């Protein structure tokens, strides 16, 4: 039996928007962010531009568009003049960090209403250049300089997990199969296609044992949430979604660690966030985890406490994390199917939760809707466990 939380709400999400992820030729990052903002304001007519006190934007790399100081351009371009507009960066978890910074602004009493967004326009570069840019998220002098890429770091984890626990490439493939099935009817997802275990196993090698279909695709994307003080939420919507737990942790580079088969940042952040919410992982009706690579979802199962260390492969096999399982994971399709516009992924997860727990649920295809969802967790990771943010959400309906 899942236990509801009686914890105090920290902030409420009153609206959310997300640009369609993919190779969005002809649209700049700024225009994709506008697309997300259009949806956010359209779905929340009582929220006016003048109500917004600040904008936080997660963005990992300015080199894709040779554009820095991005948030100031965003707010003033969209007709949100004068407000503080600040960029937040923790590589792949930049979006989740942007949400946290916005929440801290509200919780301090400084702001009433904040926009927490994220953007990454990635398809401006060829793939080897994208790999080089993403490698900036690893340690330059000792990782990137010596042939390490982010997929390679995760492949090292995958092989060690396979050796230690007998995890198989088929089990990794099952993560892709599940998430592609979920993403198939997500209109925001980039790769809306069903894949089989065979497809994954036969896809081309990227960093062994990881293959192309074990990796989330390079994509353009933008997403944004409007959050406010919980007591103000009903001014804007009848179905706000409350954030009742938030925590973040960081770790040293992989080379300094003795543990390769798990990420302590996930364990620390999840424990703190769940404690704030007064819940445990099995109280969650759905979980959106960072599945940039299939191995990440397996490892996240274990570090989030959904199963014992080493049993993640068995958990995906059991089907319990499918949409009709006891704890659905990545009903959105995950980064795997939606695409991974680096910073946007953290806010994209919260966008999914806002819709699953709020009024938006009726618009979600039944094939990927979690019935009567009232609680949810998001788990966003930067690098190979370098930074993790975990958030816990509660429906108000």
């Amino acid at each position, binding site marked *: 039996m899942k236990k509801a939380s009686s914890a105090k709400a920290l902030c409420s999400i009153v609206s959310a928007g997300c640009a369609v992820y993919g190779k969005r030729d002809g649209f700049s990052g700024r225009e994709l962010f506008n697309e997300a903002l259009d949806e956010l304001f359209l779905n929340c007519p009582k929220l006016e531009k003048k109500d917004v006190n600040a904008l936080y934007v997660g963005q990992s790399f300015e080199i894709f568009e040779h554009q820095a100081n991005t948030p100031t351009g965003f707010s003033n371009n969209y007709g949100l003049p004068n407000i503080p507009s600040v960029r937040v960066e923790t590589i792949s978890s930049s979006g989740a960090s942007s949400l946290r910074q916005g929440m801290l602004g509200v919780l301090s009493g400084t702001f009433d209403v904040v926009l927490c967004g994220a953007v990454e326009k990635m398809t401006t570069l060829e793939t*080897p250049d994208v790999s080089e840019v993403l*490698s900036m998220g690893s340690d330059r002098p000792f990782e990137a300089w010596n042939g390490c890429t982010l997929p390679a770091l995760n492949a090292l984890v995958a092989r060690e997990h396979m050796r230690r626990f007998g995890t198989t490439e088929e089990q990794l493939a099952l993560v892709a199969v599940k998430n592609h099935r979920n993403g198939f009817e997500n209109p925001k997802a980039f790769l809306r296609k069903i894949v089989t275990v065979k497809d994954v196993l036969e896809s081309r090698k990227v960093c*062994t044992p990881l293959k192309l279909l074990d990796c989330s695709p390079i994509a353009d994307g933008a997403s944004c949430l409007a959050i406010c003080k919980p007591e103000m939420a009903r001014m804007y919507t009848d179905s706000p979604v409350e954030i009742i737990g938030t925590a973040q942790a960081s770790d040293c580079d992989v*080379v*300094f660690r003795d543990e390769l088969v798990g990420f302590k940042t996930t364990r620390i952040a999840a424990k703190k966030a769940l404690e704030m919410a007064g819940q445990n992982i099995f109280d969650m009706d759905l979980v959106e985890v960072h599945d940039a690579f299939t191995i990440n979802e397996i490892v996240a199962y274990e570090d989030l406490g959904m199963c014992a260390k080493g049993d993640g492969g068995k958990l995906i096999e059991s089907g319990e994390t499918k949409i009709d399982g006891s704890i659905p994971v990545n009903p959105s399709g995950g980064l795997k199917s939606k695409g991974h516009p680096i910073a946007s992924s953290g806010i994209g997860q919260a966008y999914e939760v806002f819709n699953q727990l709020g009024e938006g649920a009726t618009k979600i295809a039944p094939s990927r809707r979690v019935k009567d969802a009232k609680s949810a967790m998001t788990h966003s990771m930067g690098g190979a466990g370098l930074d993790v943010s975990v958030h816990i959400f509660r429906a108000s309906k």
Partner: protein
Amino acid sequence: MVEKLTVDAFYREAKAGKLLGLKCDQGHLTVPPRRTCRVCLSANLEVVELSGKGKIITYTDVYSKSRDYPMNAPYTLAFVNLVEGANVLGVVLNSDSSKISYGRDVRVKFQVVQAASADSIRPISPEKERPRIFFELSD
């Protein structure tokens, strides 16, 4: 406090074939260099010279590489545990995947390999002469 072993000094010595690490007052070893011990966070560190010998813990054949890494793909990246106790990441020279497995003995070898193209915004001054970390398979 003066840095005990800068990244630049590490690579300068590496060019002369020396692998340096840092040892704390409790005997923990930290490689590559940083301000504090990777185990106990002590800042009381001494520079030590290491044998360069170690064993492969995990590895990956990298088919999709970063533009600025000068070796041809596929190459094998290995996570190596040194006999003295710390870990090093690098690429296995003349790698043949069939010869690589968990526990394989290797030795660190530094080599200067310049990136093919310089037509981008990358750090020039500290990296120009800097070697890279490789491993040779031991017999």
